[in-house]
């Protein structure tokens, strides 16, 4: 597993220059609560027909920041982005809330400050 | 296509694949994972099974008249909730005296009725356990 740290502003450019749709596929977006209002966002990729080649792009953000969307490059990211919005209560461009959670359920259950 | 027709036709005269359930009992294999059995005399009260149980279906709770056993220094009694148990047999693997103190049978639990107070009774035990910790 190779981890590459990127900044929130450059993540789209980094993924754009790296992602070749015939070689890599997006496994998922992953979030990780670091502190009460800090989290790590990971974009996990894996290579077709290669032995355990996994590349993780990650960045650390405040919960109030907005994560840029990569759906225009990788259409299948939409579902993971919607999950992150639900689970961590952050904003992702163009992804609305409500994939899993309802109005009356626990909000942002996986972030450091769930309610 | 004709073979499938022929098969469907012969199936009309075959015995059904299912068994006549309430009249014919289900035969369980000898190694089927079922209820956990407990032998009070052999238990050494090490509480390893309690720690190993993933859903917390085994509780040792202090009571007024504990079972007579030399090893039982804290006056504990074994409680087991068959409706919480997932029959994974982690407890039996953790037990230092398996087969004597703790073993797995191939029986299923009885259907519980409201009078058994399956939930409420167990919540009381859990509360008691928390108070004593």
């Amino acid at each position, binding site marked *: *597993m190779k981890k590459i740290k990127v900044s929130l502003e450059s993540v789209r450019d980094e993924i754009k220059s790296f992602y070749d*749709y*015939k070689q890599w*596929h*997006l*496994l*998922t977006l*992953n979030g*990780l*609560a670091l502190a009460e209002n800090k989290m790590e966002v*990971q974009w*996990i990729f*894996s290579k*077709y*027909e*290669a*032995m*355990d080649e*996994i590349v*993780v792009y990650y960045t650390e953000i405040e919960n109030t920041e907005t994560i840029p969307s990569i759906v225009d490059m*990788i*259409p*299948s990211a*939409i*579902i*993971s982005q919607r*999950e992150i919005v639900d*689970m961590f209560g952050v904003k992702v461009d163009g992804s609305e809330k*409500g*994939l*899993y*959670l309802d109005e009356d359920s*626990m909000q942002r*259950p*996986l972030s450091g400050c*769930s309610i | *296509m004709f*073979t*499938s027709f022929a*098969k*469907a036709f012969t*199936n009309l005269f075959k015995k059904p*694949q299912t068994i006549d359930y309430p009249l014919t009992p289900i035969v369980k*294999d000898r*190694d*089927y*994972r079922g209820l956990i059995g407990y032998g009070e005399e052999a238990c050494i009260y090490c509480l390893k099974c309690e720690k190993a149980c*993933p*859903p917390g279906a085994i509780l040792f709770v202090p009571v007024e008249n504990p079972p007579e056993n030399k090893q039982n220094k804290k006056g504990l009694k074994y409680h087991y909730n068959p409706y919480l148990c*997932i*029959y*994974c*047999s*982690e407890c039996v*693997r953790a037990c230092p005296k398996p087969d004597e103190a703790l073993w797995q049978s191939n029986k299923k639990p009885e259907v519980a009725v409201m009078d058994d107070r399956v939930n409420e009774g167990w919540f009381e035990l859990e509360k008691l356990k928390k108070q004593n910790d």
Partner: protein
Amino acid sequence: MKKTINIPLGSQHISLLEPVRFKFECENEKIISVDSDVGFVHRGIERACTTKFKFDAIGYVVARVCGLCAITHSLSYTAAIEKLLGGEITKKAKYLRILLLELDRVHSHMLCLSHTCENAGFEAMFMRIMGDRELVMEIQELLTGNRVQFDYINIGGVNRDISSEVAQKIVNNLYEVKQRVLGYMDEFTNNWSLSLKFKTIGALSLDDAYRLNAIGPLARASGLNIDVRNEIGYLPFSEVGFVMQTHSEGDINARNIVRLNEILNSILMCENILSGLPEGEIFTKLKGKPNGEAVVRFEAPRGELMYYVKGNGSAMLDRVRIKTPTFASIPAFSHIFVGENYADAPAILASFDPCLSCTAK
């Protein structure tokens, strides 16, 4: 006047096993856009894993994510923990893990095939396949002690050894299943309601499969070589005779054929394992607490399953991320529906073999 009509499919529908809702926007018979809602059975398992349970119990918790691929879930989680603890398990335990993994794949694919038949209106075939599936369920029960929740894998190995009678019974039953599956091959290629009707329906092109990151039998039916069993060195799949099964058409029929071929390949793998099962212990005790992060992938019956586990050196984990196969395929599903007839939607949906309790976890 509005030219399109909206037709919902689900959340309760006669062709669905589990709750999912699709909203189809149709122009006459053609579907022109799809909106899906998959979160009806969300149970918060990821949160439970980090707040309620210690790391050694989570293998049993994640097995409850899904009944059909329970073994892949607990195997992936266990493999991640073993990676973090840094231990090596015995060869026999590895072989037994593959054995159950492949038996699970056989019965899961048989369920999907029978369901496809049911949605084609072929009830008799549905009954036949479900009846034959009992042969596999029976040997799974003998091997693990339960039909659905196997609880067979724990950190460091497997829970039960295999006796020679059980091994013999598995060989006998698998031989029987193999004969039946060869029979289905004939039905699925020659029977009018199962083959011609399904050809060119719900097709996914190879380029779209790449673009939408399709996985599992869905991608392999389009000719995309993605099978995690080919891409991990953790379990010795190539040693026991794994061969990737692909097809080029990408339609419903191709998916059925890929699944049938995979069943045959899985049976072959099981037979190879039982004929060359190594001697040795089935369990190695691994000490310590997980620290660090690990990504583990396995091939579940529906495609690639990924676990991300992060530990901090204590008994409670920081994060358990479960990426299930159906979850990742939802964008591809929605894409396939566009341009098809509404009347074909249940058949297309059944051919995806969706698992919603996995998706919503």
